[in-house]
């Protein structure tokens, strides 16, 4: 019965569902990112420049 059901399903809906899913996630990620404080992301960006100590003993 499940086999019959899957045969008759219209899978073209998957493409539209995928698009909606992506849109929702993308908007969530954008909102999350934009509300992050600038100081925080600046600190995170500086990690790559601070990964080696500068002073020698």
């Amino acid at each position, binding site marked *: 019965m499940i086999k019959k059901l899957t045969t008759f399903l219209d899978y073209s809906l998957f493409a539209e569902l995928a698009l909606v899913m992506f849109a929702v996630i993308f908007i969530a990620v954008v909102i999350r990112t934009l509300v992050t404080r600038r100081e925080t*992301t600046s600190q995170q960006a500086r990690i790559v420049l601070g990964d080696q100590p500068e002073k020698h003993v």
Partner: protein
Amino acid sequence: MSELKLTPQQTDFPESKNEHLESFSYDDQIVRMFSLATLVWGLVATVVGLIVAILLVKPGWTFMQYVSFGRLRPLHTNAAIFAFGGNAIFAAVYYSTQRLCKARMWSDTLSQLHFWGWQLIIVCAAVTLPLGITQSKEYAELEWPIDILIALVWVGFFGVNFIMTLVKRRERHMYVALWFYIATIVTVAVLHVFNNLVVPSSLFKSVPIYAGVQDAMMQWWYGHNAVAFFLTTPFLGLMYYFLPKAAERPVFSYKLSIIHFWSLVFIYIWAGPHHLHYTALASWASSLGMVFSLMLWMPSWGGMINGLLTLRGAWHKVAEDPVLKFFVVGVTFYGMSTFEGPLLSVKSVNMLSHYTDWTIAHVHAGALGWNGFMTFGMLYWLLPRIFQTKLWSTKLATWHFWLGTLGILLYIIPIYVAGLTQGLMWRAFTDEGNLAYPDFVETVNAIIPMWWTRVGGGALYIAGILLMAVNYFKTWQSRPGTYDVPVIEAAPLSRDYVDPPVPQSRLKNFPVTDFANKLDVFEQAHWHRVWERLPIRFTVWVTIAVVVASAFELVPTFLIRSNVPTIKSVKPYTPLELAGRDIYVAEGCYNCHSQMIRPLFAETERYGEYSKPGESVFNHPFQWGSRRIGPDLAREGGKQSHYWHFEHFREPTSMTPGSVMPAYKHLLTDELNFQTIPERVRVASLLGAPYERELTESEDMAMEQAKQIVKDLVEQGGPKSGTIKDPSGKEIALEKTKVVALIAYLQRIGVDYFKTETETKTTDAANEVNAEAVAPGPVVEKDQDGKQP
């Protein structure tokens, strides 16, 4: 080894105030090893590329079967992607991860196992591919024992070592480059495992569990994401580390890097079907691939913008520093390729470009420009640091840059012209409505001058790499007698670390509802900053994104029967045809010939009825191909006589003057091992082919069919004796030769679709196969009305 004791770097995170410091040093020896491997395999990959480019313009230079275009081209692609690109990625990952984590790699043993395991895989590829041991799936040609080794090395050595290093890190926040590395490791593992699910028939031969449309979907889900997660994400990680280091300034927008990372990881997975526009793939899948490929332009350019704008205020450095030159041009080619890719994904553009050299130009703009130049920039930045000396010659590095750039342009420009020429000639009609260029070979000969120019471009690019090799060696020569091993001191991550308290609502002193206060707390994204620094949780989210996207695309392809309408007259291959098909696969014929006629007027006029999905249900693996250096073969069956094929394999230009196909004389004298046929039949049966008599009499059936072919061949003008002399002078009975099996296969391609019901029943009766039988898997069966679809 001398040790330098270095003070901890002040950071803005709480752990830096912890008094307890741990001492460690970075493993740069592994970086030196991967860097050298990158250089060596880069030279090998490009030289093999040059050889195959020359073989196209001088096919007569194919002096033995092991160096034919069909066998060497996969060696070139695998060497470029996995040997050159792979070792470059590992050099980048091992250098940057340790420093971003403030931790040595978790296990030196795993690092070494990873290095030597990966080089072993490359050597295995270099040996097996010219021998014709191949699965014939693009960028996944390697046979099953090597696939298992790849999974072990990638996950067991590399993946474990990397994740554990993240777990043991001393820097709480995971810098964005690490996210790209996580995405790479997870996704490549998933892609590799699922695309390479096979049933072995011997130590050096296997059969994919997928067939036809499903195999095509799997293959290009893998193939495009091999580009995405092997050639893009790790190189973006490389960019996010080495470009700011070389420019001495932070990335332009960290927020942009977050957005473009998640968009890229999610969208890329869906783009695979753009390799299958207008083929026998379901239309909804094709459209899905196109839409997501178009959307992919945005996050890709997010990366490009971030890279280029990191250099704002530092452009004067580009003029002086070859490292920055390579990075700027590399990122620019990334932008160009990621604009062109979505453009090529548009169905109407793809109608022109598919199977042409436009795809090749696109690939090489990305591979030579983005991957190559980012690698060279990274190596030139690394050399003085890993060898603790000065770069031997900045001038030589600059010369490399200019030679390489010129080489790329001299490669891609003529090949763009070639691609457009091919596409336009294939679809050109006269005023009377006939094909303007009915002979395929005319369209090949028209682009040979462009292929010659490409040879020049490739040679220039290699010349640049040779300059780098000289610079590399001379820099290495000036290294100190003993390397300094700096001892770093840094505080471990506090076990008692407490996340900052949940922030208060910024609206609490305002007359707003409780919901508004809760929303404001949520907006401050405290919840996300918590899991963003947790490597395991992060890895899980990346895996979910990749797997959900993949499942959405692949599951329907397998579930829905109407995606692949069965055709009653399509039957499995005979035992001899199966053996012939395996020869087609081994010789790499798919590298030049497609077997997929699109429903476009120019194609149906040239090749015949367009290909239906149900015609390839027994094709394990699918042979739709992606290039047309030679004509499409989907309706080849019955077009030419056996004798024509015989002579064509002996010397292609004897039948098609101007052909660039090399001679396959060895097929006329190499004997087919008939004893391997029963195993091929058994595996095909296991995967759904409704064999009966074949299961017990396959050798006899194969010999019977071979003798009939030879009889016809002799009548048509072949050797009267029915034998042929091999190079040592020994007489070989033609029915025992590989060429006869291959002819059997070629004469079968595309003919079943046109068989009448009477012919089908006659064939069934002759083979004692019950036409009403339904077998598991992709088999022929009656449709619901008892009619042929």
